[in-house]
């Protein structure tokens, strides 16, 4: 199994969510994060003093998938969150050794 971590634009969460539902992904976990990358922070002025906001709000999605759906998930996220502008984000794939569903105790793919 794989543990996929995607960092996307917050405004794309809904489209990504739709896209994943369409390929029958039934679970994911979402959190708000701050990103730093090539998309440099904006420079703002507060009370006459200039400053740069280094970190930009991003949304992080975590999805545990079995090998079979890995590709489909990556493609879905990619196409749903791409705008072509700097700052679109990344997808990271880690190896997932075990998954357990707390409610039933199921393990492995059937726990996802």
């Amino acid at each position, binding site marked *: 199994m794989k543990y996929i971590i995607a960092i996307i634009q917050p405004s794309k969460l809904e489209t990504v969510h739709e896209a994943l539902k369409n390929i029958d992904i039934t679970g994911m976990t979402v959190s708000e994060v701050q990103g730093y990358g090539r998309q440099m922070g904006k420079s*703002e*002025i*507060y*009370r*006459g*003093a200039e*400053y740069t906001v280094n970190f930009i709000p991003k949304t992080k999605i975590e999805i545990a998938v079995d090998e079979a759906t890995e590709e489909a998930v990556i493609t879905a996220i990619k196409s749903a969150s791409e705008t072509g502008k700097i700052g679109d984000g990344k997808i990271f794939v880690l190896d997932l050794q075990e998954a357990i569903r707390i409610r039933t105790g199921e393990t492995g793919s059937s726990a996802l």
Partner: protein
Amino acid sequence: MIKNIKWQKSLAIIVGSLSSSIILPSAANAAPDAETAYIFNTFSFLIHGFLVALMAAGFCMLEGGLVRAKNATVQSTKNISLYAIAGLMYAIVGYNLMYMDVNGYIGSFSFWNPSETVVDDGYSSGSDWFFQMVFVATAASIVSGAVAERVKLTSFLIFVVILTGFIYPIQGSWSWGGGYLSEAGFLDFAGSTIVHSVGGWAALTGCIIIGARSGKYTDDGKVKPMPGSNLPLATLGTFLLWFGWFGFNGGSQLAMGSAADVDAISNIYINTNLAAAAGVVVAIIGTIALYGKVDLTMALNGALGGLVAITAEPLAPSPILAIFIGGVGSVLVLLTVPLLDKLKIDDVVGAIPVHLVAGIWGTIAVVLSNSDATLGAQLYGIIVIGVFTVFTSAIVWYVLKLFMGVRVDEQSELDGLDKTENGLEAYPEFTN
């Protein structure tokens, strides 16, 4: 036991009643009886005093909204405490120091008690005390915002004890108490200098002695903004200050028992509102011109700058002049905020630009509309009050620094004062 009631103002009342018989001939034989006037005058102090009290809540919200979340509990604590302390100190010693048997430079040291008033006095002595008391709190609120986010809570509260019990009343005795400044012709209707600049000078002294927030000014000469945590709250605070100011300036007419007085109060409300409105509009246009976007915190400061500026003379100006005075107050705020940063004077909420700078401007601007005012007397008052307040404040801050310290240690500042001073987070569920 004769109280040196605000000198130039008791005069104003006399002039008022004289003029009412001139302006209002048709009412000559239908004027309010003495007791009716007494009720009006007293009630004006009470209801306008209530409005000024609202300003304490306004300052609390403004400052609470402009500090970072980790310091908002301390800021709330400071504001409710200073209002309480001001109220007690002004009874214990302040009022009599300011108004009782003023010998030119100081009144008498004694606990205030309501005196038996008779209708001939024109108003209830207690109502006057109440109205004067809420003014003291204002001066203390000003300091609270400037030195926020690093001052030690207990040291600050002790400073407030001295400011409200001694510094403010003593300088107040010189003008409103009928002392040497009022004799020199210094005019400050509702306190651009006597209240606002005094608070501003004490704040400036505090900011310098306490030092800037750690990290605010980087070694390479940059300023690191630390944006306020709750701007809707800061906006509410500004609205409360604005509307409370109708009491601050309107009540300073010190009477409502004649048509002339209530006409004056009407004019004061109008000029007060126009000056604040001009302050907002100037700040909006100004920040768009300077920075390309509207800086809401500057618009709020602009409103207050306009209000402070009109406070020294809210009665005499025409509407156009009131707009001008308020607008210039706001321009000064816009220019002084970044200037202070250049001088590495760290004023968290803009109290010094608003209350000190616009206060000086307003005190000078009295000469534009009040022919009794002279530039010399105005500058004289501004300077002696400034020197006195800076000098006495500096002593108090230094003594506090010596004996108990005036700022929290750096780790506490990083973690937020709320943890060390209160052990309570302002918004435990909203921030990490």
